[in-house]
């Protein structure tokens, strides 16, 4: 902490009446009265906090008394320091803290020459020590990093969603259920209605979250519901379509549906997906359409999936083809 200086400390002495020791305030008496008043308010504030704490649990009163007390006491101490202590100005010399050339040379020599001597005399030992410590440094990183969690599954065939970024629990004939596990029927939604659904048995699962939207009121006996998207015209059923609810930008749930424009909006970064044209991103940073889940209706009017998702859901990553 100290600045080492070669010379002895300068021990000066001044009279109490030295102008440097006089308070900064023009009217020290007034300043003292103000500081004192502030400190008394501070003291009362703390007493007030003590009482408030015992008789109630009112956050505002606690903050007013405690904060007010600290504010007043702090103001008092600052006034004391600023207006009533020696006004100065005082000066302190800066000492150069760099060493002399000789000292620098000595340190360089200690490292280079002494170290060089050690290495040159016992080259093998130096090499072995470097080898050993490097090996230790590498292997100690194994448990530090590798033990943290599993590797993402390399095979696309892995169906465990905890182990693979490609997997979801949607399979052929998965039953659509709500987050509470209630079976979703064709009659459940009106046109413009949306519902977050999961495959039965995986309610609330993050990768399986799917948004079910009813675009049109089409009964079982009407002509079949045809989507415009090429290659998946029959992925909707009776006016229903389903898409992964996980945004392709950063994985937020795409939770806002604009009924009039048939758009899904991600509340995180405002990517907008056009539901009628296969959830193609129309706006914002999302790079890819939301993956679509092919739907069908079973004999009891329950909604089911024709198959699982045909591609990885959610945001992009290196292994995604």
């Amino acid at each position, binding site marked *: 902490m100290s600045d080492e200086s070669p010379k002895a400390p300068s021990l000066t002495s001044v009279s109490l009446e030295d102008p440097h020791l006089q308070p900064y305030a023009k009217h020290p008496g007034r300043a003292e009265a103000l500081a004192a008043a502030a400190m008394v308010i501070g003291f009362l504030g703390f007493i007030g906090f003590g009482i408030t704490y015992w008789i109630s649990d009112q956050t505002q009163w606690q903050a007013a008394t405690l904060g007010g007390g600290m504010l007043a006491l702090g103001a008092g101490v600052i006034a004391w320091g600023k207006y009533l202590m020696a006004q*100065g100005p005082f000066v302190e010399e800066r000492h150069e803290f760099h060493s002399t050339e000789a000292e620098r040379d000595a340190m360089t020599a200690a490292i280079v020459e002494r170290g060089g001597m050690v290495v040159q005399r016992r080259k093998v030992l130096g090499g072995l020590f470097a080898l050993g410590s490097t090996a230790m440094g590498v292997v100690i990183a194994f448990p530090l990093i590798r033990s943290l969690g599993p590797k993402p599954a390399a095979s696309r065939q892995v169906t465990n969603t905890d182990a693979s970024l490609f997997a979801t629990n949607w399979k052929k004939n998965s039953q659509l259920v709500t987050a509470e596990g209630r079976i979703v029927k064709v009659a459940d939604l009106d046109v413009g209605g949306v519902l977050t659904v999961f495959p039965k048995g995986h309610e609330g699962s*993050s990768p399986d979250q799917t948004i079910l939207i009813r675009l049109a009121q089409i009964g079982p006996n009407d002509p079949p519901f045809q989507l415009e998207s090429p290659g998946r015209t029959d992925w909707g059923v009776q006016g229903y379509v389903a898409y992964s609810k996980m945004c392709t930008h950063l994985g937020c749930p795409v939770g806002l549906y604009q009924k009039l424009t048939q758009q899904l909006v991600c*509340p995180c970064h405002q990517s907008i997906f056009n539901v009628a044209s296969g959830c193609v991103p129309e706006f914002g*940073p999302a790079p890819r359409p939301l993956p679509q889940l092919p739907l069908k209706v079973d004999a009891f009017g329950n909604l089911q999936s024709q198959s699982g998702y045909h591609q990885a859901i959610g945001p992009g990553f290196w292994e995604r083809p």
Partner: protein
Amino acid sequence: MIDSSLRWVDDRLGIAKGGRTFLDKIFPDHWSFMLGEIALYSFVVLLGTGVFLSLYYIPSAHEIVYHGGYLPLQGQKVSEAYATSVGLSFDVKSGLLMRQAHHWSADIFLGSIAVHMARVFFTGAFRKPREFNWIVGVTMLLLGIVNGFLGYSLPDDLVSGTGIRIAYSIIESVPLVGSYLGFFLFGGNYPGNGIIIPRFYLLHVLIVPALIVGLLAAHLGLLVKQKHTQFKGRGKTEHNVVGSPMFPTFMAKTTGFLFMTTAVTFILAGFAQINPIWQFGQYEPFQISYAVQPDWYMGWLDGTLRIMPSWEFVGWGHTIPLEVLLPAVIFPGIIFNIFFAWPFIESRHTRDLAYHNLLDRPRDRPKRTGAGAMMLMLMFMIFAASSTDVMANFFQIRLNSVLWFFRIAVPLIPVITYFVTVKICEEMGGAEGIGKRKRPNVVHRSASGEFSTVPAEARPGDGHEELEAVPVPTFIDMVPADLATGPGIRRVMR
């Protein structure tokens, strides 16, 4: 008493010499030098309130049935982390005050660091010999942002959970290793096996704060060793420091300031609600709220993500999500590298290798000031861009228009700012006595109709600092001068 105990300690530790030098240490007076003190004291508040919170908070994703004081949540299944965070707000006496004080002081901590850093930058206080301290400071800013995010994530509420989800996706976007990093950190695919909350907790309450404490000690140690910079002024040179001594003046002021900083934090904590997690609800990965912004120091990262076009690279069987990688990994990386490297960038440009203990006025260094203003404007613009949806709603403009405004304005306006700032600085550099206190001229009209101008009389403060600065006196003669045996001679009573 003090004399004898000091002797006892000095016999063993030899503290008297260094201790006196420390008590005599001079701190220059300027309001902008207290910005760093705000950061220091809000860190003290963070530690104090943080210890309080850690006595009640349980970092566990384990699901329990809520039976606390918040009635709408009664009987619902929530994580222990969320239940104890809500419990801190409803069931622990003074808990809400402490929780909100902790959150507010985190925002104040990072805000004061940013302003302090701007002060150091614009006045050139980072120049030789203080490059180390600049790097230490920038590292603390980085750690502060990281720890703010970690702490924000701990209550396991809907908003913070969404933030963790976004963080996971950003990690995932890193080429080659992204999915591995995500799996390692979270213990599997998102949301992982519940390990992330205890891991974030450990980082938040132990590892990052310990690093900050270490760096803080280095920051202050270097300040003491290298002494504070000062502005140019009467009697102030490159080789001295003029101001108030550590003891008692600076100590009184700074203690008062500690109280004031704490006071403001607690008053905010009691009257300005922050992060009402009970309104957001427990985090579920398939639920979301709207118009949710992160804490202010994360906003600039969110803004870049919003305005980035959807440029995903797909090829050779791989995907590189540039729409995430560029704004959320590469961009902040570049920004912080510029921060770290600035002292060296500047000294290479100016070829200035001299010691600098006197501060620059920003106007005297137009290019540096311009560069700083450009960076501040860039930060402000992308921060504003993190509220595109709120702005579109508030001004009733199409979201599309707001987005396109920011896509153009974010690169453009900072560049304009640079040139305008440089111009303003150059204009100000030419003006005489700018910024000095003005003395009015009084115009008289004589009886014959002649006009004359006389400067008004000096007011108190016009000619302050008339005294020559002197070293802090070691001894003070308590006896009035006329009774003293001679100047500088001290009577020692033994």
